Structures are given as structure tokens and as C-alpha cells.
């Protein structure tokens, strides 16, 4: 192997781990915000930690805490939170092709099927790097997110009113930040986002809390039926 090839091979091994660990640390720290927001919403410290340990998908966790904070129905809140987790199913379909997990490994890998691990995994040039990237992101983010959740939950009580620290804005701001790259990506995405927000706001006064958010999925349905598919676009 030439020196250059050796350097390239080393870079292929290091890069996915470095990217995964960096992203895992940066995103994981915001578990403090979740822990604080969850306790501010009325969840106990153990309930906040259970969500981070077992659900391990930020948007759904914030969603359940948000519904509980607004005094919403727990059934609708749970349904909304689980529906928000449905994108992880789609990530899983892609990741299964690349990672090819089997047996008990698949049960463990499933916990880590989220936005960040998918982003790092899909960015890698070969299956080996992809596996390393997935593992590094998952391990770092899982540890950081859970420790940060505990820290946030424990600190929130001593810090006083969550509103005084602006923690009631953390959920809405996080959701906006999470969909923002998709809003930049296309007009259909922007219209679907506006439609979803309009449907939810328009039905808030008449439907049980949590249900308007589920109803917003109809905006996605209309968007999917109205917008040309990738195949149709490439055929033009």
C-alpha cells in the first residue's frame, strides 16, 4: 500500500467516528433542555429519564412533554408523539440496506435509528465507514442525551420557574430548527408546513389538545398527492 493510500484508508476509518462523536456531543447536550422542559411540564425526573432511555427520539419526547404541559389528553398526546416517531421507520428502511443488522444486533440498532445517526450513516462512502459512523453517533448521542436529560431534570427544580428561563420556547424553537433544512429544500415542504400549522391552530379551540397536531398530517397527505413524484420529475 502506498503512503497516500494508507493515509486515505486511515481517513476513511477516522472520519465517520469523528463526525459521529462531534454530532453526538453537540446534539446530546440539548438533552438538558429536554430534561428541564419535561420537569417543567409536570413529568417526574424518572419519567423524563425513561423517555430518553427508551423512546430516545427528541421530537416525540418534546411532543409528549408539550401536551402534558398544556394539560392535554394523554391518549392524544401519546398518539401524536408516536406519530412523530414514524419518520424513524423510514430511516430504518434505508439503514437496513446499509447496515444489514441481524438477530439481537438488530434489536439494539433499532434504538439508534434517529435523524442524527441516519445523517452520519448516509454520508459515508462505504458500508464499513457507514457502520462505524452509525455506532459512533449512536453511542455518543445516547450517553450524552441521557446524562444531559438527568442533569436538566435535576437542575430545573432548583432554578425556579421554567418560564423565567424561557424554557417554554425551547420546544417550539427546537421543532422549527429540526424542520428548517427541509423548509429550505422545497416549496411543497414550505406549503405543507404552513398548512399543517394552519390546520392545527384552526382546530385548537374545538378539538381535544393534541388532536389538532395529528390532524395536521392531512397537509402532508395533500402535499404528497399534489406534488409531482421524483419519478415524474425525472421523466420531464
Amino acid at each position, binding site marked *: 500500500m502506498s503512503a497516500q493510500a494508507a493515509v486515505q484508508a486511515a481517513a476513511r476509518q477516522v472520519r465517520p467516528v469523528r463526525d459521529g462523536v462531534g454530532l453526538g456531543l453537540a446534539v446530546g447536550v440539548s438533552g438538558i433542555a429536554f430534561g428541564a422542559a419535561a420537569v417543567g411540564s409536570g413529568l417526574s425526573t424518572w419519567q423524563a429519564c425513561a423517555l430518553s432511555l427508551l423512546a430516545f427520539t427528541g421530537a416525540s419526547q418534546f411532543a409528549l412533554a408539550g401536551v402534558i404541559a398544556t394539560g392535554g389528553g394523554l391518549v392524544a398526546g401519546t398518539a401524536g408523539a408516536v406519530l412523530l416517531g414514524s419518520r424513524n*421507520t*423510514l430511516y430504518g428502511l434505508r439503514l437496513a440496506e446499509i447496515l444489514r443488522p441481524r438477530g439481537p444486533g438488530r434489536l439494539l440498532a433499532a*434504538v439508534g435509528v434517529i435523524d442524527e445517526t441516519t445523517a452520519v450513516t448516509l454520508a459515508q462512502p462505504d458500508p464499513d465507514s457507514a457502520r462505524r459512523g452509525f455506532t459512533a453517533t449512536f453511542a455518543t448521542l445516547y450517553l450524552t442525551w441521557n446524562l444531559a436529560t438527568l442533569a436538566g431534570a435535576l437542575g430545573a427544580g432548583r432554578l425556579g420557574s421554567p418560564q423565567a428561563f*424561557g424554557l417554554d420556547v425551547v420546544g417550539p424553537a427546537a421543532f422549527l430548527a429540526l424542520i428548517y433544512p427541509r423548509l429550505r429544500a422545497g416549496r411543497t415542504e414550505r406549503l405543507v408546513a404552513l398548512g399543517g400549522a394552519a390546520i392545527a391552530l384552526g382546530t*385548537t379551540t374545538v378539538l381535544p389538545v393534541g388532536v389538532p397536531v395529528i390532524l395536521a398530517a392531512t397537509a402532508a397527505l395533500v402535499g404528497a398527492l399534489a406534488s409531482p413524484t*421524483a419519478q415524474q420529475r425525472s421523466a420531464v
Partner: protein
Amino acid sequence: MTATWIAVLATAAGCYGLKLAGLTVPQRVLASPRVRRFAELVPVALLAALSAVQSATSGHGFDLDPARLAGLGSALVALVLRAPFLVVIVAAAGTAAALRAAGVS
């Protein structure tokens, strides 16, 4: 077991089940481009709706809290400036907290 614990564990079970389903389901399910497109758009619709509802309502009514809306505005500015996720969150919470400390409620 309290109702809240049931909601927490049901959410955890549902979220895990959906993740595992993706790794387990045959690839042909997403063969339809429209199904794939719908699945891509669902999180966009739901997260936008959640952001709007949590920003502008409380329970069954509209609740336009100036500090909270200003916080969301700061988040939007940070996003337009391409700030990292954490900076966006800190900008939002910091703006709301600062305004409340200054007496805006």
C-alpha cells in the same frame, strides 16, 4: 401506575416499535413514490403544527405571550443566519428570559 407513566411507557414502546419496524419491514412497502413522499412530508407538517400550537396557544385557547413569540422570532433569525441547533435554542430561550426579566410578560 399513574396515567402519566402509562403515557410515557406507551410512547417509548411505540417509538421503539416504529424504529424496529423500519429495520424489519420488506423494502417493497415504500415502492410507491406517493407513499414515500407522504412519509417524507409527515414530520414537516407535524413539527410545524407543534411549533405553532406551543407558541400561540394554551389549552383550548390562543395565548399570545410577547416574550415567547419574541423568543421564537430570535430562533428564526438564528436559523436564517445558519446557526447550529444549540445556538438556535439558546437564542430563543435567552430572548424570552431576558424580556421576562425586563418585565415583559
